[in-house]
Structure formats: C-alpha cells, structure tokens
C-alpha cells in the first residue's frame, strides 16, 4: 500500500515542482492561519465595543519570541546538516530545536502566570481572556510541532543518518510547520502589543 502511494507521488512530482504532500501542508497552513485571523479579528471587533481592560503584555512573551526564533534557526541548520549527512551536527541541532520548543511552551506558561500576577487572571475581562485564548491555542499548535520534532529526534538517535528522499521530505515538512508556528507567534505578539 505504502509503495503504491509513494510511486504515484513520485510520478506526480516528476511533472510538478511542488511535492503533493508539501502542497497539502501549505494548504493546511492557510487554514490554520484563518483560524488565528478569526481570533484576532474577533479581538478587534470586541475591543471597539468598549468595556476593555488595558494592560501590557507580559515581558516573558517578548523574550520567548527570541526562543522560538532561535529554535527555527537551529531547526533550519539541522535540515542543512541532514542534507550534508553530518550526523553529529544533525543530532545536536535537532536536540537543540526540541529543547527550545519545550522551553517555549514552559515559558508561555510562566508568561500566563506573570499576567495573572499583574492583576489580569482569567475571566476578569475579555481583553485578558483573548490573550490567554490566542496564546493558548498557539501553544497547542506548538505542542503539535514538538510531537513531530520528537519523532525526528528519536529517529535521529536510533537510525543511521542517510539522506533518502522520503526522510528528507519528512524533515522538510516538519521544518515548514515549525517555521509557520514561529512566524505565527511573531504575528500574534506584534498584534497583541500593537492593538493595545
């Protein structure tokens, strides 16, 4: 079954530049982007209606932006190492990306605690609730990405690094998704800090 599908895919790829699975991921990312567009639009609509608590975004969120950008960079470097078949570098970089991914989620949690400590716990006012809801839904998507990274990490340590098209495709899909959630966070943090 697996071989048939793959053959069809490869046949298709020969005539089309974008691999069908990559195309499918891009299409899916558009739909994820719509989900967050909806939330940020709802934020604007709700904010203009008044009764809106003003507060500043927890500083941890800004520092955390650096974390997710760093993880994107290490993961991109990991893809480079994979293509060069540099096994040691690949293992190091993929572990670093995985660690930074976990750190991001942990720090988001710390960010929520900071927000609550600053006097904006959940259910006080929609303006705070939106921050929790938007960053929470984003964190769920990061956790999804971490799951994909975990698979890559385990594979990196139990299998010898060989650059096969199937493995490269899998890694490229993971990298694309990871960059997406990084870019999404940058959009969200800019949105949340500018729409005050």
């Amino acid at each position, binding site marked *: 079954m697996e071989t048939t599908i793959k053959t069809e895919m490869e046949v298709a790829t020969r005539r089309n530049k974008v691999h*069908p699975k990559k195309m499918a991921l891009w299409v899916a990312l558009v*739909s994820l982007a719509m989900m967050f567009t909806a939330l940020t639009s709802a934020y604007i*609509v709700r904010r203009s209606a008044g*009764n809106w608590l003003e507060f500043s975004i927890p500083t941890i969120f800004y520092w955390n932006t650096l974390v997710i950008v760093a993880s994107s960079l290490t993961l991109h470097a990991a893809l480079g190492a994979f293509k060069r078949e540099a096994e040691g570098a690949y293992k190091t970089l993929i572990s670093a990306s995985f660690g930074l991914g976990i750190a991001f989620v942990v720090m988001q949690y710390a960010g929520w605690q900071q927000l609550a400590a600053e006097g904006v716990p959940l*259910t006080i*006012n929609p303006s705070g609730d939106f921050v929790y809801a938007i960053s929470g839904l984003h964190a769920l998507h990061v956790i999804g990405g971490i799951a994909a990274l975990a698979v890559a990490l385990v594979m990196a340590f139990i299998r010898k690094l060989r650059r096969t098209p199937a493995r490269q495709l899998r890694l490229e899909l993971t990298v694309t998704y990871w960059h997406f959630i990084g870019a999404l966070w940058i959009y969200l943090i800019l949105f949340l800090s500018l729409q005050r």
Partner: protein
Amino acid sequence: MATATLTAPATRDEGLIQELGYDDHFHEHHHGDKYQSNFISHYIFSMDHKMIAKQFLITGMIWAIIGGLMSLVFRMQLGFPEESIAWLKPVLGKWIAVSSDGVGSLTQDFYYALVTMHGTILVFFVLTAGLSGTFSNLLIPLMIGARDMASPLLNMLSYWFFFISGMIMFSSLFLSTGPFAGGWVAYPPLSALPQAMDGSGAGMTLWTISLVMFVVSVLLGGINYITTVLNLRTKGMSMWRLPLPIWAFFVTAILGLLSFPVLVSAFFLMMLDRGIGTSFYLSEIFIGGQALDHVGGSPILYQHLFWFLGHPEVYIIILPAMGIVSEVLSVHARKPIFGYKAMVFSILAIGFLSFIVWAHHMFMSGVNPFISNFFVVFTLIIAVPSAVKVFNWIATLYGGNIRFNPASLFGIGFVSMFISGGLTGIWLGNSTLDIQLHDTYFVVAHFHIVMGVAAFFGMYAGVYHWFPKMYGRFMNETLGKFHFWGTLIGAYCVFWPMHYIGMAGVPRRYYSFDAFDAFSHFAELNKFITIAAIITFGFQLLFVLNFFYSIWKGRKLTTPNPYNANTLEWTTPIETGHGNWPGKLPTVQRWAYDYGKDGREFISQVEPVSEDESPAH
C-alpha cells in the same frame, strides 16, 4: 493487468490511451490487490476514492432519512396541533406529552430540538458531506486522470472523522436532557450557558464536539481535493480543460478551507465561555432571578464569526450542485456548455463574494445600518454571477437534442429551483425589506428552495448520472421519473405557500400559532404544507428503494461510455479497479465539451485534434 497492453483495445478510447497515454509504470507495482484484498480493507477502511465516495453517499442518505423524518414530526405538530400523535410514543417516549384527555403532542422542548437537529443534519451531514464528499471523491481523480487522491490515507480519515462526528451527534439524541435545541446556528446565550435550557448542557457539548470532528473531516477532504486538482492532473489537463464539476469542487474546497477554521475559532471561544467562565459572548445575564458572573461579552461577536463560515457554507453546498448540473445538462443536451469560461469565472466570483456578505444574516441583530448598506450591495452583486450561470444553463439547453432521463430532468429541475429561490434572495438581501421578512417563513421558503431543494436536485442529477460509474448498473428510469415529478411538484407545494405565510409575518421556529389571532387563519395552509411534505418524503423513499435495488438488480452497463460523454471517467473500464486505468494514464487533447462539433455527436477528451478540425471553442 500487465497484459492489458497486449490485448486488443475494446473501445476506441482505450486504443487512444494505449497509443498516446502517459506511462507512469503503474502496472509494474503490486497494487490494487492490497487495497481490495479483504472485506475490511475493501468496504470499510478503504483508501480507494471510489469506495470512499460511496461511503459518503450512503452515510449521507441515512442522515437524510433521519433528518427528513424529524421534519415530518415537527411538521405534523405544526399542521395538525389538535391531532394526537401518541402513536409516536414507542419511538419518541417522553418527548410526546399525553394530555389528560389522551391527546399526545410533541413537547415544546423537543420541537426545538428537532428543528435544531434537522438543520444541523441537513446542512452539514447531508448537503456538505453527502454532496461534496461523495462527488469530489468520486469525480476528481476520475475526471482529471489521476490514480487516486493525493493522500488516500487522509481521504480515508476524512470519511471516518465524518462518521465519528455523526455517531456523536446521533448519541446526543438519546440524552435524557435531549439534544441541543437552540437552533442550528447555536447563538449564545442559549449555546454558551449550560443552564440556559435542557439541550444546552450535555446536548450542546456533544453538538460542539461533533461539529469540530466534522470540520476536521471537511478540512482533511478539502486539503486533498485542492492538492489533487493542483498536482495530479494528467498530461494535457490544463486548468482550462477541467470539466466544470471539478472547478466547482475545487472552489468549494477552498471556501471550506478558509471558512471552517473560523467556525472552530468561534467554538473555541464558546467552549471557554462554557467551561472556564470567560465572557467572550456573554453579557450581563439573569437566569432564574440569579445574576451570572459573566460581564461584558458580545453575542453579536459569535454571530459575526458564525456567519463568516455560515455564508460561504451555503455556497459550499450549492457550488458542487452547480458543477454537477453543468456537466449533466451539457452531456444530455448533446451540446457544449454555453460560456465555459463565464461559468468558471462566475464560480470564482461567487466564491469570492461569499466571504463579504455574511452580515446580511444579521441585519436585524443590531448591526449598524450603515454597515448593512455595504453588505446589501455585495449581496445583490452575487445575483450577477448567479444569473450568468442560469443564463448559460438555459442557453445550453436551448436547441439541444435533450435526452429526458432522470439525471437531466433533475438538472433542469435544479435550474427551476435555483431561479425560484434565487429571486427571493434578492428580496431578502435588502436590509429594509428584511425588517418585515427576517425570521419569517419567507426566509424558510427562500433557503429551503435555493440551497436545500436545489442542492438535493443537483445531488440526484449526479447520482442518476454517475450511478453506472459507481456500480456498473443503471438505476430504473421509470421510477426515477416518478421520483423527479413527485419531488418537483411536492417541493413546490411545501415551500411555495410558505412565502405567503412569511409575507404575512408568521415567524419561523414557533411551536404553535394558536395564541395569535393574526396567524390562526393559516391553519389550513399549514395542513396542506404538512401533507405535501409527507408525500414528498414518500417519493424520496422511492429513490432509496431504486438506489439499493439497482445496486444489485439494475440493468447492467454494457459499454464503458453509456452516455457518449467526453470526460475521462468514461474511458475507464466498466469495473473500475484501484488506480482507475489498467495501463497507461490517458492524456488529454482537448476541452471536455466537444459535443456536436464538425457533425460529430461527441469527441472524447483523449482524442487528438485532427488537422482539418474546425478551431477550438
């Protein structure tokens, strides 16, 4: 199958594919067998797009029967409030209240639950999954010359998420507090407060989970349809050579992909309101004299998010029907579709406009009237591409050598329904007229005709037309014609009178009109509607009977191309195995609508353009 190239071609098309086809070395691999090796992988967890299409269709039919029966139960209550329906007690149990003099009637709570479930089931499970799920799956790979979908696995998951979604919704019917009863749009506060009414507790929770599963199904399906259309078209199948159904499915999938995630966002905020006490949608509310903690939310916010999905959703329902009808009418009128590019551009225009008209569902919700003007203008502009399509269908039929079979009759019926329902849309699109007409039976009549009945007609046209491709047999034509006339006349009898009731201001969703003097003289008309609805439903059973009888006992297909049609699905063998074409993939030489060209009745898409042929369309 490796020997297929050695045997003499059985048909002209097969010969052309052998000679000019695209060799993807499909037959060198062991395929097929693994897909269809045993009962479970063939019929249940199938990854073959044709089997998944059948799964969607039959599941959709079961849901249509359930949803249809629900409407009959509440129609009986509306049409015959004095008659006893105590005989339904064995099925509905405590939802039938029997008064002291032995008259059984539907409880008010359950009336609302039935209306809600009827809407949810028909809109999502039948007309979204059953229509676009069935035909996108069946036709996209067959018509573009692909072996299967881009990802057969995601395709299988798409069906099973739909199945799980259905099971969850079905189980909510058996809750002691009943299923969700706040209307299919699930406006807060009824949906956002678990204590608002009986169905708002567990019923609403299951409703939400079910619909989230459904969205996952739609997205998995949609990602596949888009990727397949963009990436897996066979050689020569440029976008401008795509048959119109494929264009329609493609745009439908894009609409779904952009709008359904917004619904999930809306549900996400609603879950937070219900679960952890946030106030996105809930403003200051008293329940049972008790003030709730919620402050400062806006129920209108939910309406915006919901209708941002909700409006594209009606085009998600109607576009596939439009695509199917375009193909069916062209094939059976033996004429090229009139204005192919205009058809494509109007699909694209409708798709685009569908995203900027959502607030016309909210004219009376307290939306700023100046903002309403904007939405009125764009709503009325949708009439333009819609009218282009109607004109083109009629022009396609005009002067055609029409074969009147159930498929083409339902195609023509679709055009009729779409005109009747579309015209009332122009009325409702005006925010001033909407002051009188909103939330009346006029709206019920409008959307049932334009997207309910019309979409059903499109679906029937498709089922009758492609049934031979699905099962290798024909459906019974006489029964099909009875079905058509019964449905056409029946549907008009049900929904036409509702326009008058609506213009008189009778509100929709009311359990009873006894208490209103102004409406009581519509009692006889309500009886008429109910009787018409029961008879029309009976005609649908004729279809179900015909469908299942024909699967096993229908007249057998003897040639691969029974309608002398041009598109690629008719170049596959009668028994289409996994991979669709046994040897090479067909290459496409021309557009899909060369009917009656140069004195030839039809020219298949696989036939090269000859030198002395007159110029292309």
